[in-house]
């Protein structure tokens, strides 16, 4: 009974933290566009939060620069369990055009575990929506 209640509340209100780990901003504006009236991610109960301590889902973009690596780990550790990570964009998956550069690690999953990958350079808002819905379906 309690388990079902916890599961229900998790699905109904996933609060997200948006994290730029060195992305070019394209994915970031598409994440914001997904939250604005045309796509309106908020109707699924998704709320953008300011601090990792309030968040359930980390929406990460970018190929992870060496400077951001420690900060990314720190923010992941600050997020309370259960936590999920959505990697948005081709950079967050594999490094995209920057792959081979001396200063990037090439993907969020090189640093923290990832639950859902959203492809695209940048990922469209509808694709981000689909990724979030797929994550909710997994719970």
């Amino acid at each position, binding site marked *: 009974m309690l388990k079902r209640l916890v599961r229900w509340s998790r699905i109904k209100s996933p609060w997200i*933290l*948006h*994290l*730029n780990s*060195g*992305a*070019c*901003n*394209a*994915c*970031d*504006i*598409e*994440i*914001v*566009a997904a*939250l*604005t*009236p*045309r796509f309106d991610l908020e109707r699924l109960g998704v709320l*953008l*939060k*300011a*601090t990792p301590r309030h968040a359930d889902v980390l929406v990460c973009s970018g*190929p992870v*620069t060496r*400077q*951001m690596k420690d*900060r990314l780990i720190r*923010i992941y550790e600050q997020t309370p369990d259960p936590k999920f990570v959505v990697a948005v964009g081709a950079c967050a998956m594999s490094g*995209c*055009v*920057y792959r*081979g*550069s*001396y*200063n*990037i690690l090439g993907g969020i999953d090189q640093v923290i575990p990832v639950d859902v990958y959203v492809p695209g*350079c*940048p990922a*469209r808002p509808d694709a981000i929506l689909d990724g979030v819905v797929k994550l909710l379906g997994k719970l």
Partner: protein
Amino acid sequence: MKVQIPIGPQHPALKEPIGLRMTVEGEVIHDADLRLGYNHRGVEKVAEGRSYIQNLYLTERICGICSHSHSTTFAQGAEILFEIVPPKRGQFLRYLVSELERVHSHLLWLGVAGHEAGFDSFFMYVWRDREIVMDILEMISGNRVHYAINTIGGVRRDIDEAQRTKILDLLAVLRARTSFYLNLGTTEPSFVGRLAGVGYLSKEDAMSLCAVGPTARASNVPRDVRKDDPYGIYDEVPFEVCTADTCDVLGRTVVRIKEVLQSYDIMEYLLRNLPAGPVAVKAPRRPKPGEIVSRYEAPRGENIHYIKSNGTDKPERLKVRAPTLGNYAATIAMLKKGFIADIPLIFAAIDPCICCAERSVELVDSRSGRPSVVRWSELRRMAGRRAARDSKKRNVEWPL
């Protein structure tokens, strides 16, 4: 008592994660110090290992908001090295996308400014409006953000007659919406009062600190590459350089709204006078050895690319000076004598970006050395409280 505040490296108002150290006394900022390099991806080094065509798509991904600016700046420079001139129709389409990008970037910024000033419904309305621009861009190029429409020697896609009339119709809708929002901003005294007098940058400071783009123009420095050093088709298109003399965030808002309206005029001119013919010419495989500096007026200011060719199919050196870099020095001047609560607004006024995500600012008490964390929403509430206390700005006129 002086207190140091570190901000960042994750900062919602900037396109790059950036670190800031502020020395404050009470609520007033005395000094600011920038720490850069969190978003360093080594693009310039990567560019040396890629061919010119590949580099078009790499430079496009320097920034996601002014992506077309970077690829156009690179293509303009490369075309001179390749000794080719793109056909007229190709140029018209290329700068049509440039102006669309300016509109989408400025609308994005306007929404963000509304959000930081505590006017969230304005933010949502403007972003809904912006989706029309994204639709036009998607219709022309097939993509919402990285348009990938440039190629060396012109553009990759043509538009047909039906698309041309559709774009003109949508521009009329956009113009009506923009004037509605303009009206909304004019009749909302608390919004105007919140923006006026914040982030002051005098004309002398703007000149000596080499501010670029709307930041400089809001301080009454009529600096616009499209007029000063016309590239492409800008010597034949009629338009005005928009300036404001209030030197604050309100002035930057006014300049951007005026520029959006100018961009609609430019786009209508381009679409009504669209010449017939091919959209691209074939480029030779290798450029001549030499070097070139290419300038371009991006939505945020002057964008400079330096390309050095050694005669092979890859550039020997690519140097990029993005407009935001030119505005950093001016940012520090603007923050000085400002209030902690105005930090989000002053930042947002320089560089339009992802302002929705809230972050925290750490306040360190220099006497006890104990840090206290203030969330971004708390900062905005502080700003709101201060604006409510401050009644003398209530009757500020919207200078349009």
